């Protein structure tokens, strides 16, 4: 394992040497999507230039090569998340797709009138709306674990909510807005005690550490590759085999069937049962490159580096007059949301962009959480391992300048 050196690492990401508005790009929007190392870009390039073919159904060489590479990616994800079986790893379009597959295929099969689904106040819309839709259809009830002022889940409230009516608990592993790392393992344990299943939205987690689905004992775990230094248009739905075997497929089409007649269609086994149609082959193959890349890094050191960035940025931001950090959980990933008194987030975002800095402004697809804090939106700086303390300094200077212009 090589020693972690941020300046070396940055060279792996071609975009990090570009300029924006005449200034070196300072990319602090990793919560929205991460940048890609050259090896991931090369994998896509090489696939299309040398091996492109449809998979799973062809006997010719290109099809075999592509299929093998694609299935290799599945195994790499399996090991990376510590799943027991490779067929528990289903490829999806992304996090949102993963939640919808479960809310539909699992929800329509299992939820009955009067059943309860628990989510949290800090969920991304992707883990709210699908549950609203299915609860509406099945006449089930949606309950919400509240968040305290620091941005942590109120575990006492959660415990009170749990009952034998609870069928599903769906929650975010790391909040994309607050940075809060939720006590997922404990939440799962409590849910299992009343017989409920748990879906974890790991969209943000995967940029900071590999989730260990077996240690967590998660029933379903979803994420997308684009926030994990991989390609767009592909995600993973991990599910326990016994649960996935039981529920009907979500989509119908090629690859997900065993036999089709107009009278009767029998479905294929996992993982194919949930993978109708030609998948995103190039992205599947690039997924393998992304996993290889991140597993080659020294994550103990990265963890230290990211926490340093978080602590340093937090301390420096707090020196800015009128600035308030939203989300001060004890367990936090390198994501910081803040507001500045008398200044609109949009204005700040526009001005710092002129100085080459990419931050996100707005509600971050967590409107209910904004309502909870009584705000319209925040400015969010989200750091990946390739960010530096110098970039924090650039951000702070730019914010000071912008605030001076704006107030």
């Amino acid at each position, binding site marked *: 394992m090589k020693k972690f050196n941020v300046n070396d690492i940055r060279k792996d990401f071609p975009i990090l040497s570009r300029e924006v*508005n005449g200034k070196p790009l300072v990319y602090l929007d990793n919560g929205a999507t991460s940048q890609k190392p050259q090896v991931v870009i090369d994998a896509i390039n090489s696939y299309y230039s040398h091996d492109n073919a449809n998979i799973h159904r062809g006997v010719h060489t290109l099809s075999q090569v592509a299929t093998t590479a694609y299935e290799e990616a599945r195994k790499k994800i399996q090991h990376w998340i510590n799943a027991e079986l490779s067929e528990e790893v289903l490829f999806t379009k992304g996090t949102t797709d993963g939640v919808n597959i479960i809310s539909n295929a699992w929800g329509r099969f299992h939820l009955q009138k009067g059943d309860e689904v628990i989510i949290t106040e800090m969920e991304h819309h992707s883990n709210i709306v699908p549950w609203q839709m299915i609860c509406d259809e099945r006449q089930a009830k949606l309950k919400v674990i509240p968040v305290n002022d620091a941005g942590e889940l109120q575990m006492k409230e959660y415990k009170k909510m749990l009952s034998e009516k609870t069928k599903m608990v769906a929650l975010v592993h790391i909040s994309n807005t607050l940075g809060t790392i939720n006590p997922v393992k404990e939440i799962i344990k409590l849910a299992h005690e009343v017989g409920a299943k748990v879906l974890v939205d790991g969209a943000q987690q995967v940029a900071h550490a590999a989730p260990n689905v077996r240690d967590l004992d998660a029933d379903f775990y979803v994420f997308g590759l684009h926030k994990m230094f991989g390609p767009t248009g592909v995600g993973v739905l991990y599910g326990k085999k016994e649960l996935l075997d039981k529920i009907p497929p979500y989509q119908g089409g090629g690859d997900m069937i065993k036999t089709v007649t107009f009278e009767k269609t029998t479905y294929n086994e996992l993982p194919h049962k949930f993978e109708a149609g030609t998948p995103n082959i190039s992205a599947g193959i690039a997924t393998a490159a992304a996993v290889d890349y991140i597993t080659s890094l020294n994550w103990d050191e990265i963890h230290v580096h990211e926490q340093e960035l978080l602590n340093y940025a937090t301390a420096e931001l707090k020196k800015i007059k009128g600035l308030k950090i939203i989300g001060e959980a004890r367990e936090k990933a390198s994501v910081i949301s803040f507001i500045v008194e008398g*200044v*609109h*987030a*949009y*204005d700040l*975002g*526009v*001005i710092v962009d*002129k100085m080459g800095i990419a931050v996100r*402004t*707005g*509600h971050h697809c967590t409107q209910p959480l904004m309502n909870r804090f009584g705000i*319209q*939106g925040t400015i969010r700086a989200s750091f990946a391992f390739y960010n530096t303390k110098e970039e924090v300094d650039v951000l702070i200077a730019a914010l000071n300048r912008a605030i001076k*212009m*704006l107030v």
Partner: protein
Amino acid sequence: MTINERQDEVIEEFEMFEDWMDKYEYLISLGKELPLTEEAKKIEENIIKGCQSRVWLAADMNDSKIQFTADSDAIITKGIISLMIRVLTDSSPKEIMESELYFIDKVGLKEHLSPTRSNGLVSMVKQMKMYAIAYSSKV
């Protein structure tokens, strides 16, 4: 002055600015100068919700000319609104309906009028024209 004369005036003003800083400082000052819409007018039906900033827009007719008042919670958005009003207000419905707003592009603020910027400005421009259509049928 016609709408186009006013547009040209704005373009000329912006030619003075040497860099984005000057330009945005000017926009911000315009935003600050634009009178706040009275709270009474900030009602649900006057709101244009962008994902990023909110815009309130109201219109009145005086002497066959439309008067716009508008506001936003973001100051840069408000600065641009101020330019829009300066260009369009106090014109006849017909003039507004037929106008083509080229100045935004020319002064280098096009990005703020991108439909994907979701600051409410694109919808505001649409809404201004809608008012013109509505009033023209009343004339």
